């Protein structure tokens, strides 16, 4: 029917996923009861808590799909989906390990050297090693091919890196940055050539991490500046010049998960308490409409998990899910506002007012991070055969 490249097969039912879901749910209830964390919106970027990440690692809920020889647990993407979804719905502090578990680990598994895999993957799976995404630059946002951070070989065969990366969430808590660099001069005829990925140890001399505050004053963004940073030659990830291809593969992981529609779920949960109390028909209808959208997004995201289990790399469907999902995350705020009389304030005595405030102040990011929705729609348009 014309748009098959956008459509994935329905996700299979997974009893194992439901089993681990119940385990995670019980764990989270106990942690909440013990006061080990409190629920917030957008915690997969803002909720850094290494102790919590280690607890997840101890329970086998990080590196879930990776081979056991690298500290993984050889479980399915469907099981991993259930775990991540439960953590997000609870608004748990998962930001420390999120990027490493979601995309850096799979990237290392695919392109890392055996030594890198043996050294780093078990640490990620234990919740002890964190990664930051080194893609965007001060002058390269959506136009990733225009990056200018350069890596050149020195006489010892090592890389010397100069440049800067921005929007590097939680670089100040992270151990490594998988960094997209230019290893050959820009070629106007082939903009995607000459790019490579380097595995950069953030403790190396010449690296400075400068904080950038977001709208609520929170600090997860940074600028990471590289000044003559010498990086061992064997830290090239994958092939020299294949960076664009590798980044595209990485983005399929980055764009497809439930964090692309559940960032504001804690606001929905808070709104549900109001709707249950007021029994106002308009509020119930709003809860129903939001839930219907969320349920559709779950099905889309589950289909992607199913495709990952089949060994596919569904980059176009992932772009579509992220577009629809992040639009939803922001719409939650507007829809709730229309049916409650609660001003948004971080200092509100009403938890719904606080949730609205948190969600609102984080909202501009939902449809920007991981590829703007305009870029995503361009990818979807390609899937429709329009470009």
């Amino acid at each position, binding site marked *: 029917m014309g748009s098959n490249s956008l459509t994935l097969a329905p996700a299979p039912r997974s009893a194992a996923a439901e089993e681990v879901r119940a385990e995670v749910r019980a764990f989270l209830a106990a942690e909440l009861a013990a006061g080990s964390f409190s629920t917030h919106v957008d915690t997969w970027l803002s909720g850094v808590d290494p102790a919590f990440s280690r607890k997840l690692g101890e329970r086998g809920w990080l590196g879930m799909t990776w081979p056991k020889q690298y500290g993984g647990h050889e479980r399915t993407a469907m099981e991993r989906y259930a775990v991540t979804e439960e953590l997000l719905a609870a608004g748990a502090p998962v930001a420390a390990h999120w990027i490493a578990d979601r995309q850096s680990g799979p990237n290392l598994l695919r392109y890392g050297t055996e030594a890198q895999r043996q050294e780093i993957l078990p640490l990620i799976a234990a919740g002890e090693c964190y990664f930051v995404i080194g893609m965007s630059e001060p002058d390269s946002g959506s136009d990733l091919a225009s990056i200018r951070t350069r890596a050149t070989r020195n006489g010892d065969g090592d890389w010397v890196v100069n440049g800067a990366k921005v929007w590097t969430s939680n670089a100040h808590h992270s151990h490594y940055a998988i960094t997209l660099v230019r290893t050959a001069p820009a070629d106007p005829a082939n903009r995607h050539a000459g790019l490579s990925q380097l595995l950069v140890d953030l403790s190396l001399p010449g690296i400075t991490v400068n904080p950038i505050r977001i709208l609520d004053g929170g600090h997860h963004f940074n600028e990471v500046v590289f000044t003559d940073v010498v990086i061992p030659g064997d830290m090239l990830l994958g092939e020299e010049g294949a960076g664009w291809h590798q980044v595209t593969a990485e983005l399929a992981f980055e764009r497809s998960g439930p964090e692309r529609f559940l960032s504001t779920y804690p606001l929905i949960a808070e709104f549900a308490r109001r709707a249950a109390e007021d029994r106002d028909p308009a509020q119930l209808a709003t809860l*129903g*409409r939001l839930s219907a959208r969320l349920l559709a997004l779950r099905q889309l995201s589950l289909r992607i998990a199913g495709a990952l289990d089949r060994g596919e790399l569904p980059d176009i469907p992932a772009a579509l899910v992220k577009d629809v999902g992040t639009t939803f995350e922001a719409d939650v705020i507007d829809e709730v506002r229309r049916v409650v009389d609660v001003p948004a304030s971080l200092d509100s005595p009403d938890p719904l007012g606080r949730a609205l405030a948190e969600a609102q102040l984080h909202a501009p990011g939902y449809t920007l991070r991981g590829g703007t929705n305009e870029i995503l729609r361009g990818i979807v348009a390609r899937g429709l055969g329009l470009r």
Partner: protein
Amino acid sequence: MSSSDVDLVVETVRDVLTKFEPFVLTAERPWDAGLWSTLAEAGLTGVGLPEQAGGSGGELADAVAVVGALAAGAAAVPVAEQLLVAAPAVLAAGLDLPSPDEPLSIAVDGAVTAEPRDDGDGPGSWTLTGTATDVAWAGVAQHLAVLATSPVGPVLALVDVTGRETTHAANLAGEPRGSLVLQGVTAAGALLSDAQAEQLRARYALARAVQLSAALQQVLTWTVQYAGERQQFGRPLGRFQAIQMELAEMAGEVTAVAALVDAAVQAVERGESLVLAAAAAKVRAGAAVEVVARLAHQVHGAIGFTQEHRLHHLTRRCWSWRDEAGTETAWARVLGAGLLADGPDALWPALTRVL
């Protein structure tokens, strides 16, 4: 049931549809009787219904495929009502199914009361009194499965309405949605539980969601095709980034609806409780109509706003279907309230149980 069987069914329906173009429905010509005869001859009006009951056999997935293909073709025949709602309900109630060649529809609105004419549980004879309103294909259907109320609970009654007078009314696409007055009509019927009556309404809503999903997909396909053909400023519309953004937004909506509706249909196949899944599918499909129909017309320009162009056959149907078999808002309230049944702190477990 393999996907190739479903593909074959869809191909067969599409073949038939090449000979029956959609037309503007009027009170004088409210349905496509010729198409119905052809479908009935091919056994397509009995798909998914057991052979021992006079059906053509096959699974729910086959019936859904037939309904989807007909919806995408803007076919003016009561197949969704018959295959997905009325016939399964009649069979589940233990009533005798009329021949699938004779159009059977469903009436769940209005005020019809049923008085038992004999004693005992199970299928029996009832006297129906009242008015059935918003009846899909009123005046076209020969048989009507009527959801009535009785002193002892909901009743599903099967009424032969051939030649019975109807008050004509139509939806935005001209599909008949009139009312029938029943005065002391004797009919076979069976008592339902409240839950069974709720399931019946939910199945009706899901049937409309299946139609919407297929129609929205077709609207997207037409719009992408048009954007590729229509030249302005020396290039196809689809080359303009502004148009690409609109088409991508449509695709996102269409894909989300399909994923949810497919999952809801699969839940029915597994025999799971249907009400919240159907409510979600109906609400989500209805919400997509806002975006998809608006942008489809925007991209098609003025020609799409005329009866000369095919687009209206589907957009007018979509605008109506989203509020039929229970309005989008009513189902949204059902879903919202249903998800809170175990208290607001159990919202998330409730959501993950729906589908």
